[in-house]
């Protein structure tokens, strides 16, 4: 239903019942390998041999109730609700598991079938607490529904109901076992799809109950999907629990803001109280299927936070305060910017915007800076330090990289991942990889530390931090030998004086392991190559991409259109930020920027040196995020005029002269481009909180005061423009031949101290997470991982925390001994805004010292 004023509202009645097999369109094959024809309730149907009665009935539009059956899970046929009568069969048969037989005459609504259903319903209800008034599933419950449709009003049970103790499954999920009908969908999902069998049926017979080992909380990343799968109110959403009744909710389609997969979601909100209350998946077979991860599902309550700022703030007497009466803040900002521009030229102004904003915001942001202010100093890359404008990702576009990881993984038989701890970056892609593995695919991983795939991968090579290029150089060399393709002429120079054993040694991987990996890649059919940000964004990023592309070429993964490498991105609109041209040297569609400007690092350097006077930072806590924290702090301190627009007052905001509160993702209509380049629309669910504005409104207001005529630029209008402008204008210089790359020749000399390694962690504590109670509760404590040898040498005791110290600062955190951490390294995963780990990496530092706390 499309309402021009309110967008697409999914009517509660049209909301699909989670896991209802009929929610999906039945498959109607065009032709049959082995057709079978049967009659169901008098209608004839022809299906492929092996099709179940339930599936065949679905084609005819005949509804058969079902609990335990779910199209994505294995079939157990245990609830016995789907029983149907088959002529000449003495017993009723479960239609979910029984294949249609040739010439069968099937009755789904005969007296016998109806009666059996009534009986099963009665049996399922005798021990059910019937506490619908306080059950969150109420109003959208398959037990209520089937009781109405298939039950009787006759209950003969006169004994006390069975009750079970209530476990605590952690901050996300509430398990009310008394409501459980033991369909085992949750158990099968976690075992078969998520790959961590955390829930199981414990005990037996009438005492059977769903539980975890020793009643421990759930730890997986996908547990929330069991809430959707649970046909009754046994597994419910703890975050949503008791906050609303389902019929008060308005559901609208949106896109998850938490990572670059861009899962399709439904946002449930209640306008009366201006609250976003729940997130559920929206099935999209090309992106997330019917699933989402727990971060996406439960990571929204920051939008309802009372800490959200509701009016602009202006710095007075060193503090951010609401503007004085009658002050026009936009006017004030524009006046300041104009003054700076007049005095120092447009190059004295710079803008940084988060790659999680909509394409529309990103597009207007670069347009505002370039066309209205006249400065090319813009960038979106705030979580890595890079002196160069160009990076491995941009380079990959130039050589025509396929860059469709989500689509590629779906059909891959061999998946090779280099330089990414993917489960912590792109959870649903991880889920899809796990599903491929279940179907026999092979996973090969090369990464620099004890990544999450260590146990799952058929081959896992751990190279020294930063040694991706060395590793690839040897791997390519061996691959060419394995493939027997003849050494490419264009690479002879690259490999002059190459000593594979020495380079392998330098990157810390045994020659044999490399050989095995090369062999697995050489023999792989239907391979997909994924390259993580750690590999393509490093100092050797472009070289790495070249070598990676060469590898794809040697494996035959290229054609006239593209080369089969897929670079991974992290943020929900990283790809959009690139295509919209929020880059110092490239404009929309990767056209040459006009004017050109400075990248993040150079902007901050210039500001710190007093050359750049004003910064506009939209949607990011730069100080918490930028690896060179000291530089970010200096830049903001030194700049004459800093404007920060975001949802909360954070460290960066506190350094601002003016703070502008902006709307959250649910209050913004716009599009996002996911890691595979799919542009997806998100609807506005709630109006922006009063006192806040969308980035678009903000940019329009600013532009207007500058005298630009931007009033017509509504989100759809911007979308039209950006669609036209953002098609990559660069003709990829096709990979006509193998690309030479550079292999370092020097050996890194050992340095004092331990090497600090950072990496992503799904459940860490960044700004929005800290303001989302459920995610905050789920967040893993920040720890330093150390090898057993180093723990021994340093004489650390696990009882006390340790102090990790660098010239940039110190943090005090607990440590864990981890045999997968190489000695000489300290691994601290995740962002902890409250701890400021990035102090340690200030000034490009990567060496730390460790002492026991209290020493």
């Amino acid at each position, binding site marked *: 239903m499309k309402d021009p004023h309110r967008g697409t509202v999914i009517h509660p009645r049209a909301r699909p019942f989670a896991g209802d097999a009929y929610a999906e369109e039945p498959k109607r094959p065009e032709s049959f390998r082995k057709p079978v024809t049967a009659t169901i309730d008098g209608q004839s149907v022809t299906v492929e041999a092996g099709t179940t009665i339930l599936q065949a009935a679905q084609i005819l539009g005949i509804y058969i109730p079902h609990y335990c059956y779910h199209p994505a899970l294995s079939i*157990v*046929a*245990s*609830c*016995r*609700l789907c*029983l149907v009568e088959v002529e000449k069969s*003495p*017993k*009723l048969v*479960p239609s979910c*598991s029984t294949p249609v037989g040739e010439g069968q005459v099937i009755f789904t609504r005969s007296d016998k079938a109806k*009666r*059996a259903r009534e*009986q*099963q319903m009665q*049996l*399922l209800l*005798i*021990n059910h607490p019937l506490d619908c008034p306080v059950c969150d599933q109420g109003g959208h419950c398959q037990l209520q529904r089937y009781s109405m449709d298939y039950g009787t009003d006759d209950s*003969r*049970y*006169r*004994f006390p109901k*069975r009750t079970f103790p209530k476990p605590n499954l952690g901050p996300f999920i509430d398990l009310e076992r008394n409501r459980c*009908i*033991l369909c085992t969908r949750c158990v099968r999902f976690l075992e078969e799809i998520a790959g961590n069998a955390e829930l*199981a*049926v414990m*005990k*037996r*017979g*009438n*005492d*059977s109950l769903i539980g975890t080992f020793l009643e421990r909380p759930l730890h997986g990343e996908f547990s929330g999907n069991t809430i959707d799968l649970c046909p009754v109110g046994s597994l419910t959403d703890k975050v949503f629990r008791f906050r609303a009744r389902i019929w008060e909710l308005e559901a609208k389609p949106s896109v998850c803001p938490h990572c670059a997969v861009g899962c399709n979601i439904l946002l449930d909100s209640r306008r009366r109280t201006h609250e976003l209350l729940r997130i559920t998946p929206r099935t999209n077979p090309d992106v997330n299927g019917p699933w989402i991860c727990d971060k996406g599902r439960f990571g929204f309550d920051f939008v309802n936070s009372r800490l959200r700022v509701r009016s602009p703030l202006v710095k007075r007497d060193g503090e951010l305060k609401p503007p004085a009466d009658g002050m026009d803040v936009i006017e004030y900002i524009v006046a300041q910017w104009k003054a700076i521009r007049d005095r120092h030229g447009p190059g004295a102004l710079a803008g940084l915007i988060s790659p999680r904003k909509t394409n529309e915001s990103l597009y207007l942001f670069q347009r505002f800076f370039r066309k209205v202010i006249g400065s090319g100093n813009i960038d979106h890359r705030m979580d890595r330090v890079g002196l160069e404008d160009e990076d491995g990702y941009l380079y990959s576009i130039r050589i025509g990289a396929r860059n469709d990881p989500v689509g590629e993984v779906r059909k891959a038989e061999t998946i090779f991942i280099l330089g990414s701890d993917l489960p912590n970056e792109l959870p649903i892609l991880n889920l899809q990889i796990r599903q491929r593995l279940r179907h026999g695919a092979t996973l090969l991983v090369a990464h620099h530390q004890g990544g999450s795939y260590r146990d799952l991968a058929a081959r896992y090579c751990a190279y020294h931090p930063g040694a991706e290029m060395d590793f690839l150089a040897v791997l390519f060399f061996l691959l060419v030998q394995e493939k027997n393709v003849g050494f490419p002429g264009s690479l002879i120079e690259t490999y002059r004086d190459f000593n594979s054993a020495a380079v392998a040694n330098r990157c810390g991987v045994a020659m044999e392991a490399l050989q095995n990996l090369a062999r697995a890649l050489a023999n792989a059919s239907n391979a997909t190559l994924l390259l993580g940000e750690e590999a393509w964004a490093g100092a050797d990023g472009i070289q790495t991409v070249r070598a990676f592309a060469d590898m794809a070429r040697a494996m035959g993964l290229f054609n006239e259109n593209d080369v089969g490498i897929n670079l991974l991105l992290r943020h929900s609109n990283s790809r959009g930020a690139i295509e919209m041209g929020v880059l110092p040297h490239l404009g929309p569609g990767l056209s040459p920027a006009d004017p050109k400007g400075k990248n993040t690092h150079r902007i901050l350097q210039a500001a710190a040196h007093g050359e750049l006077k004003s910064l506009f930072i939209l949607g990011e806590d730069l100080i918490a995020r930028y690896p060179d924290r000291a530089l970010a702090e200096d830049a903001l301190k030194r700049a004459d005029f800093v404007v920060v627009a975001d949802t909360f007052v954070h460290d960066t905001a506190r350094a601002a002269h003016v703070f502008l509160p902006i709307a959250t993702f649910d209050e913004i209509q716009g599009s996002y481009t996911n890691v595979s380049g799919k542009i997806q629309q998100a609807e506005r669910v709630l109006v922006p909180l009063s006192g806040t504005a969308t980035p678009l409104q903000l940019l329009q207001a600013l532009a207007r005061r500058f005298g630009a005529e931007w009033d017509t630029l509504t989100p759809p209008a911007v979308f039209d423009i950006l669609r036209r402008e953002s098609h990559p204008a660069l003709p990829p210089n096709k990979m006509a031949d193998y690309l030479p790359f550079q292999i370092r020749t020097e050996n890194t000399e050992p340095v004092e101290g331990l090497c600090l390694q950072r990496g992503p962690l799904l459940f860490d504590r960044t700004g929005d997470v800290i303001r989302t109670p459920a995610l905050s509760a789920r967040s893993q404590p920040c720890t330093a991982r150390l090898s057993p040898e180093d723990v021994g040498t340093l004489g650390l005791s696990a009882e006390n925390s340790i102090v990790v110290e660098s010239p940039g600062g110190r943090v005090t955190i607990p440590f864990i001994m981890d045999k997968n951490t190489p000695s000489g390294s300290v691994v601290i995963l995740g962002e902890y805004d409250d701890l400021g780990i990035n102090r340690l990496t200030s000034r490009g530092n990567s060496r730390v010292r460790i002492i026991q706390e209290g020493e």
Partner: protein
Amino acid sequence: MAASETRVLLKDLDLTGPRDLDSYRRMGGYQGLAKCLRQFTPDRVIDEVKQSGLRGRGGAGFPTGVKWGFVPKTSPKPKYLVCNADEGEPGTCKDRVLMQYNPHSVIEGCLIAAYAIAAHHAFIYIRGEFSEIAEILERAVQEAYRAHLAGTNILGTQYSCEIIVYRGAGAYICGEESGLLTSLEGKRGNPRNKPPFPAVEGLYRAPTVVNNVETLACLPSIMRNGAAWYASLGTEKSKGTKLVPVSGHVRKPGVYEIELGKITLREIIADLARGVREGHTIKAVIPGGSSSPILSADQLDVPFDYESVAAAGSMLGSGAIVVLDNTVDMVEFALRLAKFYAHESCGQCTPCREGTRWLVEILNAIHEGRGHPDDLETIQKLFETELTSICLLWSAVVMPVRALIEKFPEEFRTAIARGTPDFSRMGQPGSPVSVLAE
């Protein structure tokens, strides 16, 4: 003339300990296997067994040779033989005798069956409580390995077969063949839907034959003496001998072996088990393990074979006879049975998980004097779900309890009446209603 036993399986049984390999061989042991491996093709073995008329001794009485014939010969998957040694049904204690005193007869039977279906792995799934017997079996299997009667190139032929003794954890449901296979795979022993039957999709989804211990133990003598010899024992459709464990109110309980159809139930009880205690009378008899419908005292002249017992309205089942004398309270007995099955239900499917407990609640209430006039009708309605469960455990409780209520309705009605509140005295001290209210 008093009826007597016919001993084939229990022939010359020595109760002092397990028969070792040497004495087993001296008594003709492993000759049947040798004959199979050296003279018969697997198909011929299946034919022999079909002709012998041997039927499964685990409960269902399905013709063994026919079952073997269902194994798809062209399947590229491995085939498995599984010996069901999970014997757990109340009253049934026959398999343990074979395994305890004549383990090699079971092992030889496994090898013959495995050869017939071209399996190279035979698993003996033994219930957890039989730990000593499992050790006996394991020792016997080692003896067989050492004598090249198991493992590679058995008896110097091309045929190889590994024998694995696998101990269950003591769940009755793991005796149900598909539950057994799930358990053998290392999972929770939940039965599976059938079809597909194990012969087509069994262990690890490969063709698998599951046979009872006694069934398999019949094979050595059939192969040694020929199908015709075996078929000459018993009746037209019930061939051979059968082990009959007799328990309950008899003076000489024990495991007896009888020729099928040549002896009546009454003779087994009176002549072999020496009848009930002095001054007591037989009230009813369970003829084939706790899940078979009960027979009343006037039905005991039925010849003991599959067809006759079925014609009397019950089933031969595992052949375990439980005798109840006039002291037995049928309500309590029904409750005891129901409790066993409720305890052993795997809980997977709705009718059995919910039904078994409901049944226990009702019978318990009746037994404790809290019955309700509608209770029997409720039970009857509950029993309509008999055939909607995944496996036969639910039927295994429905059948005997239904028969008990049908055969002894008065006992149930009286018990219920005892518990029905006398509404005329409602609210007065001591009336059941006021008791409930306190």
